[in-house]
């Protein structure tokens, strides 16, 4: 108890030095609070972004593997590659369903494409652009159109990303789009064939089987191809996977190309998932690719803020720590006589050290609290600005997706599942979430630790002081 009393007496008699030390601690506390608040907010945003963003895995060609033994100059090599390509085991809708039945996968969607020719419409093409109908059956064979079926709304990435936007859409389009022979066609194709909503188009396969579809939407591609008269998607006709499946089942010669997307639980599982798929029969010329890099790229700005805050925090702590260290050493040198007297009257080194530490902690606590209050007030503005920017960006993103689908998509029940890439930043619109208990505990932990670490050398000095020597010097 007397240690605390002595500590308090020492603090009040050395006001100048303690205020100077307090100011430094206050600056450190302010900087810590602000940077920790920013850092934690940024981390929360990153976490929520990653949680909101689906972790996707797709099946891609392992080009590296395919080209390993390929030599452009040798005819044999080219023939071998072609042969390998043609013999490569593909996968069916059933395979995809089987692949998706994995502990690493939470859900999946896919697109199913076939190549067909026009029956009552002409292909929008003025030159010799080639259109690959399918990958497996005959990749070099030309078809007028590519009919791409989506199994779910989530699969329509071109609309989510804004590559395609609806220019005209039937009122009930999204109610019927995934069940029946309905299609969305490119605006250029519509203009070329003078087509409009509710018109029927006919497509045919190599065996002259004719398939009729009703137009329920007209879309356009975001950036027109300046080289070609028509955009690359001019002859892409969009329907549902079921419609494509009906065609392939009706005529086995029509072979489709399936592009599945698996929503995986963790990026760390990607390799294990790939091994599992090889075990389930996936050709080893395919590999699993995730969108991890894409997500990291999207988070670059927030991550930069996070890194900046961390760097700033470390620099502040280093400079603050060194200054505190120097002040503590001066403090001990100035109080050598006091230490000598106290040691002479029998106070132990441990109790003396405790007294000095108590003094430091008392001063630190007061100024840490003041610094924390100032810091949290400052952090409010900075963090809110960061949040406001994120919320704004998120809202714009969401509105853009809605526009891509022709507007009014908020009414669609499936739209809620499509917030891929959109952080749920509204969860952090309160300042309490920024300077919260975690930040306070971290700040006090760092502050107290820094004060204690910076006092270590002076504490060691106390242990080494001989009272006799000190008092002799005094005499």
């Amino acid at each position, binding site marked *: 108890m007397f240690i605390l009393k002595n500590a308090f007496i*020492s603090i009040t008699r050395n006001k100048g030095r303690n205020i100077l030390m307090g100011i430094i601690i206050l600056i450190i506390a302010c900087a810590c609070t602000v940077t920790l608040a920013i850092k934690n907010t940024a981390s929360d945003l990153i976490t929520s972004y990653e949680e909101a963003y689906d972790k996707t895995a797709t099946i891609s060609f392992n080009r590296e593997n395919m080209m390993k033994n390929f030599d452009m100059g040798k005819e044999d090599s080219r023939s071998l590659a072609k042969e390998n390509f043609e013999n490569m085991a593909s996968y069916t809708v059933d395979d995809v369903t089987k692949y998706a039945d994995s502990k690493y996968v939470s859900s999946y969607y896919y697109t199913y494409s076939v190549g067909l020719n026009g029956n009552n419409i002409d292909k929008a093409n003025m030159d010799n652009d080639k259109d690959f109908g399918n990958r497996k059956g005959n990749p070099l064979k030309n078809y007028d159109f590519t009919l791409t079926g989506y199994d779910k709304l989530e699969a329509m990435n071109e609309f989510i990303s804004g590559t395609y936007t609806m220019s005209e859409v039937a009122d009930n389009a999204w109610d019927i789009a995934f069940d029946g022979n309905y299609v969305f066609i490119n605006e250029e194709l519509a203009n070329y064939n003078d087509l409009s909503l509710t018109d029927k188009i006919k497509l045919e396969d190599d065996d002259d089987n004719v398939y009729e579809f009703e137009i329920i939407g007209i879309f356009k591609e975001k950036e027109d191809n300046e080289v070609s008269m028509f955009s690359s998607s001019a002859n892409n006709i969009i329907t549902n996977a079921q419609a494509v499946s009906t065609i392939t089942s009706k005529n086995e010669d029509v072979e489709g190309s399936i592009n599945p997307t698996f929503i995986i639980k963790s990026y760390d599982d990607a390799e294990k998932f790939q091994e599992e798929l090889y075990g389930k029969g996936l050709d080893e010329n395919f590999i699993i690719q995730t969108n991890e890099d894409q997500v990291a790229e999207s988070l670059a700005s927030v991550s930069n803020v996070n890194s900046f805050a961390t760097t700033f925090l470390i620099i502040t702590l280093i400079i603050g720590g060194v200054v505190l260290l120097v002040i503590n050493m001066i403090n001990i040198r100035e109080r050598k006589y006091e230490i000598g007297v106290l040691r002479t009257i029998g106070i132990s080194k441990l109790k003396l050290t405790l007294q000095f530490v108590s003094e430091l902690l008392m001063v630190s606590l007061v100024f840490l609290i003041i610094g924390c209050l100032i810091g949290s007030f400052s952090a409010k503005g900075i963090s809110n600005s960061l949040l406001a920017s994120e919320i704004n960006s998120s809202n714009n993103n969401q509105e853009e997706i809605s526009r891509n689908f022709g507007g009014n998509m908020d009414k669609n029940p499936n739209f809620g599942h499509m917030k891929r890439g959109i952080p749920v930043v509204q969860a952090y619109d309160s300042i309490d979430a920024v300077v919260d208990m975690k930040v306070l505990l971290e700040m006090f932990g760092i502050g107290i630790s820094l004060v204690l670490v910076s006092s270590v050398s002076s504490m060691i000095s106390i242990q080494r002081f001989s009272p006799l020597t000190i008092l002799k010097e005094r005499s």
Partner: protein
Amino acid sequence: MKNKKTEENILLSVVNASYRYSDADSDDYALKDVSFVFEAGKLYAIKGRSGSGKTTLLSLISGLARCTEGSIIFNGKDLKNINLDRYRNSDIGIVFQSYNLLPFMTTLENIILSMDVNGGKFKNKKEKALELMEKVGLKKDYANRKVLRLSGGEQQRVAIARSLSYNPQMIIADEPTGNLDKQTETEILNIFKDLAHKENKCVIIVTHSNNVCNMVDKVYELKSQTKKK
């Protein structure tokens, strides 16, 4: 019979004590082969010229340093084997020529601090401190005065009161009257005399003053080759 009684009264024995600083040559002793005994109820003076090792001996007796050779026995225990902090804050009281009070504290705070360090359960520290002040001839008005505002003699009285605060068995004083005038010197020495004769304490004064030597019960003289007077 008399010898037996004397042995029982011995409080502190210095037995062939030598001290050499760690950075000194092997034969360069600050104090060499000293043997003294100190009894309770007596006032002692340790006399010697400058450099004779008076202060070194005081440091060894007061537990501020340890003998490099020989030993110091207090109440039958070798100081090498006991906690010297505890020894200093309960068994002995030390009074210095330069007082060694804490200047930022008041008279009362300086005296109470010693009681605090001792850790004993004193019923009313403030009352006891005031009693001690009265005992050493300090006015009660000085209780809340910063010690720096007191005269040399008054500060030395505070130092004596501080050393008595936890009722030690032995008082060790290093030139306690070196900075004081004759009259004050006599007053201070009378306090020490009373402590020895009336309160049965062992009081050891390190001095080079003949006046002090004339007032004590026994004088030990330290020379270059220490010998007992």
